[in-house]
């Protein structure tokens, strides 16, 4: 499909509200994390919000890690 419009793609095809609702910020082991809630109630790590470079070397905060 080719669209010819000055509008952005998301104005024409709005994104599902549910995906935004599932994503949230939470504190895990004292660090701020951006997570997505999975169907079974656990959380999947999307992004670690930290300025300490060493936090990014911590295996518990790698993106994709499941937090129970």
């Amino acid at each position, binding site marked *: 499909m080719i669209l010819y419009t000055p509008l952005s793609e*998301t104005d024409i095809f709005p*994104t599902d509200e549910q995906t935004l609702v599932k*994503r949230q*910020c939470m504190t895990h082991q004292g660090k701020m994390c951006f997570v997505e809630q999975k169907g079974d109630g656990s959380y999947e790590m999307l992004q670690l919000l930290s*300025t*300490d470079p*060493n936090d990014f*070397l*911590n*295996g518990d905060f790698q993106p994709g890690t499941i937090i129970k």
Partner: protein
Amino acid sequence: MTNDTPNKNDDKQDTQQGGSSLVQKIQQLGQANVAQAPDSNIHVLSIIGQVEGHVQLPPQNKTTKYEHLLPQLIAIEQNPKIEGLIILLNTVGGDVEAGLALSEMIASISKPTVSIVLGGGHSIGVPIAVASDYSYIAPTATMTIHPIRLTGLVIGVPQTFEYLDKMQDRVIDFVVSHSHIKEDKFKELMFAKGNLTRDIGTNVVGKDAVEYGLIDGIGGVKEAMQKVNELISQTGGQGEGVIQ
């Protein structure tokens, strides 16, 4: 026999769980373990994707949320163990007021700050890049300088244009006062025709950004680390002072 069976099953489950976390790590990172390093006195703030403002962007966008970064900047200012800050930029731009808020916060930090523009530092990435004490740009990185735009509902009155014009001046004033570029030169780049396809503005590549005085130097991680350590030694390392 009957007693042995549940134990065997338990062992099997344990190894399966251990194995699955390893598989998970390999799937996410392509490696089983990540290297460990000693504590760092230099912190890193990465500004990636779009700078998100008051409107939450759809989930497929990679965004930097200012409400996440502002408390981190305060924490960096307050923590005596942190002596310097490196800002990594690879952004396409975004919300003007969120970007200016970040720029003002970075500019007003008392600790040495060094920024590196990596792939691109476009639009509102320009004031964020120049907000630091010293700025670097990778030789292949680019910065698009162009007039600000407005999306969404616009009321078609002359006041709207005036408001936009004032917002434009805020960006120009910030860049001119925090870098070595002359106002006339910056405006010339911003309103240039024929550089961008069907658009007004200029795409400035690494070396040119330094020539125009917008960015202080060409470099990457090594140069930025050297610079931030040099700036820390000039200020006398505040962290040590507090401990004594």
